[in-house]
C-alpha cells in the first residue's frame, strides 16, 4: 500500500518536469522584460490613469471593510444565539447543569 502510494507520488512528481520541459522547449520570447524607472512624466499621460489607480485602491479598502464587517456581524449573531441559549437554560433550570 505504502509502496504504491510512493510510486504514485513519484509518478506525479515526474509529470511536472516533463510538461515543463515540453513547454519550455517551444517557448516564445517574452512580451515584456521588466520594469524600468523613469522620473518626469509627460502631462498627456497622467490624467486618464488616475481614476483607475484611485479606483483600484478604493475598491480594496471598501472590499476589506465590507468583509470585516460581515465577520463582525456574523460573530455578533452567534454570540446573541449563545446568550439566548444560556438564558433559556437558566430560566428552564437544566438537569445536566
Amino acid at each position, binding site marked *: 500500500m505504502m509502496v504504491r502510494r510512493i510510486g504514485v507520488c513519484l509518478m506525479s512528481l515526474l509529470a511536472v518536469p516533463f510538461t*515543463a520541459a515540453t*513547454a*519550455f522547449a517551444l*517557448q*516564445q520570447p*517574452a*512580451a*515584456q*522584460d*521588466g*520594469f*524600468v*524607472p*523613469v*522620473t518626469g*512624466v509627460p502631462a498627456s*499621460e*497622467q490624467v*486618464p*490613469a*488616475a481614476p*483607475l*489607480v484611485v*479606483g*483600484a*485602491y478604493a*475598491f*480594496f479598502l471598501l*472590499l*476589506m471593510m465590507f*468583509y*470585516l464587517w460581515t*465577520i463582525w456581524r*456574523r*460573530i455578533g449573531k*452567534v*454570540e446573541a*444565539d*449563545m446568550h439566548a*441559549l444560556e438564558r*433559556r*437554560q437558566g430560566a428552564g433550570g*437544566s438537569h*445536566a447543569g
Partner: protein
Amino acid sequence: MRKLFIPAVVVAAAMFAWAPIGIARVEYESTMLLVQKIFYFHFATWMAVTASVTVCGIASAIYLFRGTPAADHYAVASAELTTIFCLFGMFSGSLWGRKAWGVWWQWDARLTMAFLLELVFFGYLLVRKYGGPGAEKLAAAMGIFGAATAPFIYKSVDWWRTIHPQTTVMKTLGDKFPAAWNLVWFCSGAFLLLFVITLAARVRLEQLRAQLDRAYLAAEE
C-alpha cells in the same frame, strides 16, 4: 497567540497607512507611467491568494484524512479569503489592463486561470452551504483540487505566450528598479499580515459556531 492579535492589527494598520504614501512617492515606470502603480497592491494581493490557497489545500487535506475540526475551520476561512483577495486581484488587474492594454479583460492564460481559481473556491463555499450534512468533506476535496490547480496559474504565463507581464519581471526588478522592489515586498508583507489577521478573525467565527452547536447538543440532553 490571541495576545498578538491587537499588536498585529496595529502594525497592519500602520503598514497600510504608509503604503499609499510610499506608492505616491515611488518613481513612475517608463512604459506604463502612473497606471503601473496598481502593481504594488496587485502583486501583493496575489501573494495573499497564494498563501490563502496553500492554507486551504493543506487544511482540507488534514480535515479529509484526519477529521480534525480545527483544520476544517481553517479550510473554510481561507477559502473565503481566497475569493475576496482573488476578486480584488482580478479587479485591479482589469483596471490596470484597461490602461495598459486598452481592454478591460483578456482571455490569456493567467487571467483565465485566476477566474477559474475564483470559481473553484466559490464552488467550495456553495457546496458547504447547499451540500447538506457531510458537505465539509466534499468541500475539502474541492479545496485540495483547487490548491493543485494554483501552481498552474503561476507558471501558465511562462508557458503560454501572452501580453501579461511574465514572471521574469519580478526577478529583474531588484536590479533595474530597487525602489519598486522594496515597495512591492513591503506591500506584500502588509497583505500577508492582513491575511493572517482576517484568517484569525474568520477562524474565531467558526470556533464560536462550533461552540454554539455543542451547546445546543448539550441542551438537548
